[in-house]
């Protein structure tokens, strides 16, 4: 696309090129813009001139903009908001989102218990790992969650601990199935 520069030809477009970047439309009509673009399609030197000027002008505008008091004030307010927002971490590690980490597995546990009745806790963890790809630890946290909310109960038979869904929760499941 680059053709050897015809300096006389390029001179005709220098003023328009300058104005195009600054955005001053005093002299730069739409027709002149189209002619400028058409010229730059053929002239690599003018394309480079345009890019250099855009780069230069862009940096100058950015510098000037960030010296303005209202811009500094706005940025300080934004920084203040970020600083005051609590960082969800404990000793550098992000705090887990309870809803995502336990709430979702709790739903899977609830459905499993509703379908299967009494289940050994260890079997529950193994089965949900196989079917729903839920980590066994998260299954146990989820069981704790349901126990806390009185949606499930624990019982012991010989050496094994069983979990089962509360009656009112099973009725909810049955109603949903209708």
């Amino acid at each position, binding site marked *: *696309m680059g053709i050897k520069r015809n300096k006389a030809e390029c001179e005709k477009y*220098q*003023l328009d090129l*300058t*104005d*195009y970047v*600054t*955005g*001053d*439309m*005093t*002299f*730069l009509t*739409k027709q002149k*813009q*189209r002619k400028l*673009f058409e010229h*730059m*399609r053929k002239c690599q030197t003018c*394309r480079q*001139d*345009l*890019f*250099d*000027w*855009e*780069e*230069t*002008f*862009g*940096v*100058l*505008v*950015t*510098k*000037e*903009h*960030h010296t303005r008091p209202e*811009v500094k004030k*706005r*940025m300080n307010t*934004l*920084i203040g908001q*970020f*600083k*005051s*927002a609590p*960082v*969800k*971490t404990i*000793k*550098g590690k*992000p705090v887990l989102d309870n809803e995502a980490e336990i709430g979702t597995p709790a739903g899977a546990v609830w459905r499993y218990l509703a379908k299967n009745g009494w289940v050994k806790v260890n079997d529950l963890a193994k089965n949900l790992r196989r079917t729903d790809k839920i980590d066994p630890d998260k299954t146990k946290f989820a069981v704790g969650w349901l126990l806390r909310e009185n949606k499930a109960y624990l019982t012991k038979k010989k050496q094994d601990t069983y979990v089962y869904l509360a009656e009112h929760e099973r009725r909810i499941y049955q109603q949903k199935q209708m």
Partner: protein
Amino acid sequence: MISDETLIRDYLEGDSRAIENLIQRYQSPLWYYARGVSWYKDKSFIDEIIQLTLTAIIKGIQDGEFSLSRTEPFKSWAYQVCQNICWNENKKYARQPKHISQMYPEELPDHLTRIRPAERDYHNLSDELDKVLTELSQEERQLISLVIQNKTYKVIQKIQPFHKYSLEMLRQKVCRLRRLMIQLRKEARNGDKKK
């Protein structure tokens, strides 16, 4: 200079000043980049983009979307976030009805645009231009200052000492100033290379 990753680690461990340093490091480069990528050069529009970008970046750090274990450096990720927001805001703004006074010069056709790696090197460009500005006369510095404040030729003509020039002469001066600044930039770069 403290690395971006160190600042992020400090922030996650509870040092709120670290995030302040990180934002101050990136606010101007991201603004410059957003201005280059955006279809609209309106300053308040770019400010809005940067506000959304910084909020998204901080949220991404907090939520673990940007993790220190990634191979991609923070800088690349931050510019990508900015670019995505620019494109979304461009589309939203394009759909709004606008008064003729808000219409900007036509956008360059696609074949005339290119990705400019230097756009992401804001601090070096800024230092280069600081040197260039010291080489200009006081009148030239005043003129370029008025142009970057979006003052048109008609407005500049009303300001001392430019009232002695016609509009056409002012236009010529700005064009010559443009060429001079680019020439000085090249000389500054060549001077640095020789060193």
